[in-house]
C-alpha cells in the first residue's frame, strides 16, 4: 500500500519535471483587448464598443479563426471596463498587456482615458488603436499608438468652412463643456479657425458649462443677446437635445451646428423634431450608406435593435485594421513581444485601408488621413450625407 503511494508521488513529481520538455508550449491564441467605458459617465459608448467587437468576433469564429501565414488561430476578446476613469484605463491596459498577453488593444474611446492608456501601451510596445479619441496627444510621439478617426485640428476648420460656405454667416457663438477634454479642445480649434476666417471677435459668444449640467439658460440667454448667427456646440448626445430645446425656448432661431460627438443614434431619438434640419460633422453618415457600411449598419441594427453610433463603426474599423495588420505580419511566432512588434510594423504600412468610415492611411504619428462628412439630420430623423471634406 505504502509502496504504491510513494510510487505515485514519485511518478507525479517526475511527470511535472519532465512535462515542459514533453509537451510543447501552450496553444497560441490571438487575444485582442478591448478597453471600454462600460460603466461610468458614458456607458452607451462602452456598449457600442462591446457590441461592435462581439460582431467582429462572430465573423472570425464563423470563419473558424483568424488565418495568419496559412495557419488558423483561435481569437479571443478580452473586454475590460475602464469605468470612464483614467487610472482605471491604465490599470486595464496594464492588465491586458502583462497578464492576458493581448496582441493588440482597441480603445479607450475618450481622450481622457486614451492619453494615459496610450502611454502604457507604448511603454510595453503593444499596438493600441483608439477608435474615437481626437486629442493629438494620444498618438503624439508614441509609435505603438494609432487612432481610427481624424483629429480636432482637422475637424474644427471643416465645420468653420462649412458654415461659412453654406450660410455665409460671419458671427458665431460657441457653447461647450469646459470640464470635458473633447468639447473644450474642439471649441478652441473652431474658435481659432473661425476668427482666422472672419477676423478677431467674430466669435461673439464663447460660453461654457460643466459636465452633467442640464441648465444652459444663462449661457443661451447671453448667446441670444450677442447677436450670433450660428451656434456651434461640440457636445455629446445627452446634452445636445437639452441645448437645442432650451435655445429654442429662449428665442434662438438660427441654425445649430455640431461635431462628430452628435453622431449617436440617440441624439435624434432623444431630441426629436427639434433637431431636424441641423448639421454636424461626422465620420460617416448612416442614412443612405452603401456597400460595406450599409451591411454593417443593417447587421448591427438587426442584432442590437438600433442604428450603430459612429463609435461602433469606428471600433469596427479599428478591429478590422488590427486584423489586417495581424494578417499582414505574415506569421505568428508565439513569442508575444516579437509578434506585437510585427503587428505594429504591419499596421504602420497599411495603405488606403477601406474602412466603413472611409479610406485610411496612417501618418508618421499613427493618425489616419481620412475625410470628414457633413451630416444633415433629415425630416425623418435620419443622418443624411450632405457633403464631405478631405484633407
Amino acid at each position, binding site marked *: 500500500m505504502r509502496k504504491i503511494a510513494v510510487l505515485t508521488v514519485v511518478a507525479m513529481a517526475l511527470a511535472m519535471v519532465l512535462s515542459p520538455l514533453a509537451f510543447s508550449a501552450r496553444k497560441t491564441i490571438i487575444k485582442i483587448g478591448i478597453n471600454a467605458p462600460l460603466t461610468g459617465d458614458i456607458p452607451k459608448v462602452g456598449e457600442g464598443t462591446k457590441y461592435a467587437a462581439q460582431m467582429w468576433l462572430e465573423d472570425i469564429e464563423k470563419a473558424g479563426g483568424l488565418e495568419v501565414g496559412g495557419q488558423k488561430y483561435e481569437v479571443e476578446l478580452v473586454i475590460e471596463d475602464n469605468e470612464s476613469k*483614467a*487610472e482605471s484605463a491604465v490599470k486595464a491596459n*496594464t*492588465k491586458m498587456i*502583462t497578464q492576458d*498577453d493581448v496582441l493588440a488593444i482597441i480603445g479607450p474611446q475618450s481622450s481622457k482615458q486614451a492619453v*494615459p492608456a496610450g*502611454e502604457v501601451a507604448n511603454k510595453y510596445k503593444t499596438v493600441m488603436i483608439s477608435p474615437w479619441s481626437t486629442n493629438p496627444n494620444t498618438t503624439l510621439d508614441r509609435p505603438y499608438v494609432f487612432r481610427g478617426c481624424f483629429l480636432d485640428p482637422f475637424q474644427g476648420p471643416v465645420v468653420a468652412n462649412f458654415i461659412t460656405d453654406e450660410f455665409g454667416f460671419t458671427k458665431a457663438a460657441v457653447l461647450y463643456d469646459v*470640464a470635458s477634454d473633447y468639447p473644450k479642445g474642439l471649441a478652441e480649434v473652431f474658435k481659432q479657425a473661425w476668427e482666422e476666417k472672419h477676423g478677431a471677435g467674430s466669435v461673439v459668444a464663447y460660453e461654457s458649462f460643466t459636465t452633467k449640467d442640464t441648465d444652459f439658460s444663462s449661457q443661451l440667454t447671453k448667446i441670444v443677446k450677442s447677436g450670433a448667427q450660428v451656434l456651434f456646440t461640440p457636445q455629446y448626445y445627452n446634452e445636445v437635445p437639452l441645448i437645442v430645446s432650451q435655445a429654442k425656448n429662449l428665442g434662438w432661431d438660427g441654425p445649430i451646428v455640431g461635431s462628430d460627438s452628435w453622431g449617436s443614434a440617440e441624439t435624434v431619438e432623444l431630441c426629436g423634431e427639434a433637431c431636424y434640419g441641423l448639421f454636424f460633422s461626422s465620420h460617416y453618415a448612416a442614412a443612405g450608406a452603401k456597400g460595406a457600411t450599409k451591411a454593417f449598419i443593417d447587421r448591427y441594427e438587426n442584432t442590437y435593435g438600433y442604428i450603430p453610433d459612429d463609435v461602433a463603426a469606428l471600433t469596427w474599423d479599428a478591429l478590422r485594421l488590427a486584423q489586417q495588420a495581424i494578417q499582414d505580419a505574415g506569421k505568428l511566432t508565439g513569442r508575444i513581444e516579437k509578434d506585437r512588434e510585427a503587428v505594429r510594423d504591419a499596421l504602420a504600412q497599411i495603405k488606403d485601408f477601406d474602412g466603413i468610415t472611409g479610406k485610411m492611411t496612417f501618418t508618421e504619428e499613427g493618425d489616419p488621413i481620412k475625410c470628414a462628412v457633413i451630416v444633415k439630420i433629415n425630416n425623418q430623423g435620419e443622418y443624411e450625407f450632405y457633403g464631405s471634406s478631405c484633407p
Partner: protein
Amino acid sequence: MGILQKFKQMFSTVPMLGWFLGIFTAVLIEYFWGYDYISYYLGLPKIPVLFGALIMLKEPVMIPGALAYDLVVYVIPVLAVAKLSCFITNPGAALLEKLPLWLSAVIHLVCFYGILHLWAGINDYRVLVVKLTLVSIILTVSINVINGYQGEFSCSHPGFMALGAYVSSILTLILFTNDKIFGTALLPPALGPYLFPLVLVAGGAAAAIGSLAVAIPSFRTRGDYLAIISLAFMFIVKSAVENLNFIGGARGMGGQPDLAPLPVIFIWTLLCIWVIHNFVTSILGKALNTVRDDEAAAESMTVKTRKTKMTAFMFGAFWAGIAGGLFAHVLTYINPGMFSINRLAEILAMVYFGGLNSIVGSIVGAVSINVLGEALRPLELFKWIIIPLILIFVMIFRPYGLISFTEINTKKLLQAKHKRQQGVSP
C-alpha cells in the same frame, strides 16, 4: 467556531518572522514553478493575478483550477512553512527582540519589501495594483487624521490631492523633461530621482497651504457646515485647474517622468505611516481627539484648539499632496476630472470601511477596497452593487469601521511567540 479557534491556537506560536518565511516560500514557489508547472497542470492559462479572483469570476470553469493553485502555491506552503519553521523563527525573533526596536522593525520591513517586490515583480499588473494601493494607503491614513482623529467630515481630500499632483507635476516637467509647454529641462534628468522627494514635498506643502482655506473656517464651525466648506473647496480647486490653460485645463497634463517606481512609493508610504503614527500617539496628536470629543474641555485643559485644528488639516493635506504627487507620477497623466466626486466617494469609502482613528484600520480599508475593486472587475456593473453592499454591512455591524480606535503595537507585532507554559493539546 471550534475549528477556527483551534486553528488560531495552532498558529498562535508563529511569530511575524515565521509568516514572512512562509510567504517567502510561497512566492519562491510561484516564481520558479508557477508558470511552467503549477498553473500549467491546473489548466490555467497563466499565473493568476490577485489569487485567481479575476479568472474565477470570468470563467467559472477555471474555479477548481484557480482554487487548487491558491492552495498549492499559497495556503499550504505558507501554513506549513510558518508552522514548521517555528523552531527557527521563534529564536530568530527573540534574537531580534534584543536589538533596539527600530532596528528590528527595519529588518522586518526590509524582509517584507523583498517579498513584496518578488511577488509583484512576477507581473507588471501586480506592480501597478500594488503602487496604486500604496498611494491609497497614504491617502486613507492622511484623511483619517482629519476625519477620524479630528472627527470632521472633510470632503476636500481630492482637492488637496489635486494640488499636490499638479504642483509636483509642474515641477518635474519644468526641471527634468523637455516639455512643449515648459521648455527644455532646467536640470539634467539624471538628477530626477534624487530631487524627486523635494518635488513631492513642495506638492505637499502646496496642499497644506491650500488647506488653510478649510482650516480657518473650521475655527468657528464644524460638522456639516465644514463638510460643505470643504466640498466647496474641492470644487473650487477642480474648477480653477480647468481654467488654467497653461497646465492643460480639462485636457489634463501628461508626460511626467517615471520617477515613482515601487521602492520609492513603498518608502514614502512607510514614512507616512511612521510619521502619522508618531504624531497621533504623541500628546500633540492626541489633542486632535480631544478637539473631536469635546472642544470646550480641550480648551480648558490647555489644549490650543486652533493650532490643533490647523495642524490636523495642514498635516492631513500635506500627505494627501504627497499621495497626489506619487499618483501623478505613477499614471504619468492627470486631469482635473480625476479629483472630483468619484474620488471623494472612494476615499471616504476606504477610510470609513477600514476604521476611524486607526492607522491599521486605514491600511486595511485602503487595501481591501483597492483589491476588491480590482478583483471584482470581471463582474462589470455588478461590482458596483457588491462593493456598496459590503460597505453598508460593515457600517451596520461595525459603525466605526472594521478596525477602529486601535494603534499599531510594533513590539507586540514583532515579538517571538513562545509556546504557552501550559501544554496546549493539539
